[in-house]
């Protein structure tokens, strides 16, 4: 077995960086969005909810394709980023990050939305009558009560980003140290008939995903016991 260690480490680093930043951005963007989806009675709730859920059913290549067109120098996002002096984001880490945020959004927003929706209106009204303002209520009631959903959302967002392939290939390409992630590296190994290396990578990703999901199950049970 001939492992190209620097290439592997680079791919691992890109993967972790991508998954980490994606999760972070999604928590920041996803919390207000999930709050709105859980509490709003607006007409737009259903359409927005459907758009957020789209990546769950859409072939990743469809999302990747549209993003590639959009990010290209002539595309709408491309023109915007160029006028800001950022150049085109296609085949860059930033473009990949944008794609990942969109692609993993439902996996973060849905658990948060379910957690927020489970908080009784009475509980929030009681906090308001106890002199807690809106931000205070969010920090002192909503966040502690949705801790299990926050954890689930973070783990799912992270794991799902690590598991990306189609979107990465379309938008990011396969540039070592910038856009080549583990799943793409695995694909390369298979293409090169390096099955031993492919086995190591595949087994690694499998174990990683399993451990993460196992963790979620345990956390889910612990909180069920706490709140039961």
């Amino acid at each position: 077995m001939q492992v190209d260690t620097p290439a592997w480490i680079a791919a691992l680093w890109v993967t972790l960086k991508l998954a980490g930043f994606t999760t972070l951005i999604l928590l920041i963007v996803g919390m207000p969005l999930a709050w709105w989806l859980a509490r709003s009675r607006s007409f737009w709730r259903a359409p927005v909810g459907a758009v957020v859920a789209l990546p769950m059913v859409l072939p990743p290549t469809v999302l990747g394709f549209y993003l590639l067109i959009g990010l290209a120098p002539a595309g709408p996002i491309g023109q915007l980023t160029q006028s800001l002096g950022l150049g085109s984001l296609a085949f860059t880490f930033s473009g990949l990050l944008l794609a990942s945020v969109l692609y993993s959004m439902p996996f973060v927003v849905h658990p948060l939305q379910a957690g927020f929706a489970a908080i009784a209106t009475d509980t929030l009204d009681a906090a308001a009558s106890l002199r807690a303002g809106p931000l205070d209520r969010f920090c002192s009631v909503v966040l502690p009560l949705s801790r299990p959903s926050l954890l689930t959302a973070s783990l799912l967002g992270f794991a799902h980003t690590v598991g990306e392939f189609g979107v990465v290939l379309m938008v990011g390409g396969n540039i070592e140290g910038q856009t080549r992630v583990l799943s793409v590296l695995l694909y390369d190994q298979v293409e090169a008939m390096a099955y031993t290396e492919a086995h190591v990578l595949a087994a690694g990703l499998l174990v990683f995903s399993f451990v993460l999901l196992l963790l979620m199950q345990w956390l889910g049970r612990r909180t069920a016991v706490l709140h039961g």
Partner: protein
Amino acid sequence: MAEPACTLYIQLQLTRGSFRLHTDVRLPGQGTTVIFGPSGCGKSTLLRAIAGLEPAASGGVQIAGELWQAPQFRLPAHRRAVGMVFQHSALLPHLNVEGNLRYGWKRAGASAALLAQWIERLQLTPLLARRPHSLSGGERQRVALARALVTAPKILLLDEPLSALDAQRRSEILPFLETVRRDAGIPIIYVTHAVEEVARLADYLVLMEEGRITSAGPALELLNRNDLPLALRDDAAVVLEARVIDHDAHGLLTLHSAAGTLYAHGSAHAPDSALRIRIQARDVSLALSQHQDSSLLNVLPVTLTALTALPGGQVQAQLDANGAPLLARISHRSVERLALQPGMSLWAQIKAVALLV
């Protein structure tokens, strides 16, 4: 008569679908006002609107000299000095009892003495470390009461605080409600659809129906009026104030009321203590003469003032007992047999006198 400075003005409108709430009422700035009405009449919505929890409600609210809402002004809920107790207590599930008590207390900046006082009065010390989900329904409402009171509110709003409890839990918490009524020193608005709670707790009564206030006035006056729907209910009753004269070894209380001397069974009460009694119309029968051979203890001379036919062949007789009102529910046949006419002198035989409090 000059209004006391602390009158409560509540003038609120709200439309939700086909439901319209429209109230314009002044309530006394002290004592317990009970808002009574059937489910869906808007009484809870009105209470929530006073607390600022109904953003769609418009109008004006002035509580204890503070303006909380006006046409161009709306104080958000968390800036209103209100103590609110919800039907299902709404304790914060992630905090223990002490955490729940301190949540509002800390934010309101109330004194440590107040916190200690209500923990003691409502006997919460043994519960402080407990989590809400491990408490009984009655305990939860006690915590909710204390949690509201330790914020030093200007008004206490209680939204059907007993309706989620069974009869036993209810009787457990009622003495605590009495303590709150006596010691809180702030006006209380209490929403309920249970007539027993009205009879027991109300100083002032507001009747609501379909989003509107149909009548408002001193509770005993309103409870005993015959032109209000309360008098036509199956459990129509009069509520009288009474004073304990004596309590014998068998648990029989001798009471003095405006209607005359009455006897009732009940727990020991100190002589001269005041309480309310409730006499249901269906527990009162009428006779032309005073029977000496009856086992009934409570027989009062009365004057028949009016007869009202009720659906189902029954007749409600309104009586005057020495100036106090009394109701009797009798059959149509009895009215004919005894040839009852308004103005007749009769004897009211009372089967049961319920002690409230």
